[in-house]
């Protein structure tokens, strides 16, 4: 595949995984948790490096997943002890993130880890960092990992689709039916963490928040069906990735920045023109009623 092909494929995988996970983040009103986890995975990555002395993507995936679970657990615990939800998110993620920054700056600062890279990502380098995969041949490591993460996301969401729907819509009923609501909360947050860290190389930790939240928020404006919302969200993620890439080429700027910006543009269009909830249709409706 061509250089451009790999970049577009990688970014599309980010868009699809984030788009699917993002729908449930939005509906569970946990958009802020995406922001929190996108920061604390830094601590997970640094710790994984300190423990294994390896920069392998899989070690980092595990480290980040653990960091995500720890974040979720601490937020939940502080909240149950009487700290407000948003305050406990704010306290936990800034503290863990700061710890990550301190560790990076002292121990591994001279190694290949740097904050700039982790937060902003550099998708342009992805096609050169390859590995040999049976049957598939030489493919970029980041692309391979993202492919596995996508399969994982689709499997976990698909197998327990009705449980995800019910625990999101009505956790009390779910619990009364015997569905382990809290366990599913942790599993979901693990999915968010894994998606986030897998997207690190591609778009960076900060930009993945845009990919998680904005396409899902846009999709929410277009449909009243959950499955359609998931499909649209993934679609918007992919479209943003492509528009962002070509826009970045055109004016020669940051690719991940352009991709995140493109999600915002799609949201703006949805906000203005969606037939059900858009500003324009809301503005036109009373007029139509009068005539």
């Amino acid at each position: 595949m061509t250089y451009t092909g790999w970049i577009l494929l990688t970014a599309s995988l980010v868009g699809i995984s984030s788009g699917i996970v993002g729908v449930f983040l939005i509906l569970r009103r946990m958009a802020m948790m995406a922001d929190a986890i996108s920061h604390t995975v830094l601590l997970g990555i640094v710790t994984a490096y300190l423990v294994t002395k390896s920069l392998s993507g899989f070690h980092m995936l595990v480290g980040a997943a653990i960091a995500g679970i720890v974040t979720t657990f601490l937020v939940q615990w502080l909240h149950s002890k009487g700290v407000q939800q948003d305050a406990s998110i704010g306290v936990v993620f800034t503290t863990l993130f700061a710890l990550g920054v301190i560790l990076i700056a002292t121990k591994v600062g001279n190694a290949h880890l740097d904050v700039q890279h982790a937060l902003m990502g550099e998708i342009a380098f992805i096609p050169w960092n390859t590995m040999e995969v049976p049957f598939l041949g030489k493919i970029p490591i980041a692309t391979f990992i993202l492919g596995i993460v996508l399969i994982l996301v689709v499997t976990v969401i698909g197998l327990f689709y009705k449980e995800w729907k019910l625990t999101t819509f009505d956790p009390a009923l779910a619990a009364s039916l015997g569905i382990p609501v809290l366990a599913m909360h942790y599993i979901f947050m693990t999915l968010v963490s894994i998606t986030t860290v897998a997207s690190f190389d591609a778009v960076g930790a900060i930009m993945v928040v845009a990919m998680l939240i904005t396409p899902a928020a846009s999709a929410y404006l277009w449909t009243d069906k959950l499955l359609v919302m998931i499909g649209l969200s993934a679609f918007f993620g992919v479209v943003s990735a492509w528009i962002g890439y070509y826009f970045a080429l055109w004016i020669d700027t940051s690719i991940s920045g352009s991709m995140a910006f493109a999600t915002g543009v799609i949201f703006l269009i949805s906000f203005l023109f969606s037939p059900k909830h858009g500003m324009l249709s809301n503005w036109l409706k009373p007029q139509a009623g009068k005539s």
Partner: protein
Amino acid sequence: MNILEVEGVSAAYRKNTVLNDVSFSIPKGSLTGIVGPNGAGKSTLIKVLLELHPKLSGNVYFFGTSLKKVKSKVGYVPQRGSVDWDFPTDALDVVMMGMYGQIGWLKWPKKIHRKKAMEVLDKVGMADFSHHQISELSGGQQQRVFLARALIQDADLYFMDEPLAGVDAATERAIMAILRELKNKGKTVLVVHHDLQTVEDYFDRVLFLNRTVVAHGNTSSTFTTQNIEKAYGGSVRWLKEGIGIVGTHLQ
């Protein structure tokens, strides 16, 4: 046989005790109204019984055993305000959620579940709204959907949290007709209720709750001015002794 046995249950939110030494038992085939002032712990009581909120002490027996073993026999209708009605789903889908326990893990709902959900929607007079997004429904219609979702569970014991709050008169009549039908079929129903005026018409048993059980028994013998005053803190204004209450006054 007693369907539900509650012994000395206490519960708290953080450090505030909400329920203290609550004990009562519910016979099979009864329709019980749980009444009490705001903050008396009515909703909390249901949540504690269903293990949605931890209890500090006491024992609860469902059908003579623990809830875990008989979960499929217990149905729950949460307060309407407890969910997000802007959620992207329609009325039929919400009703099908009541069957998620029966359908089991790893399976998606099938046509037969859809058909059954349609039948139950029809029963609550909502068949024409099956494909309406749930935010397009009125309060009364939303409550009917919630009731349909509970009916489809085909449970033997139902807990309903304020099913008649903020609904129109027609919905109130429809819901009460269904509750009576459940009772006549030998099912047991507990309803958190806020309107003292209708207690005598609607329920054969009444449970006065104010942090603990104030009084409990057959409506005819238990729903007395004395018990109402005990539960509501004394100053209840009566329009005509024993007939209707125009309002409650709490110190």
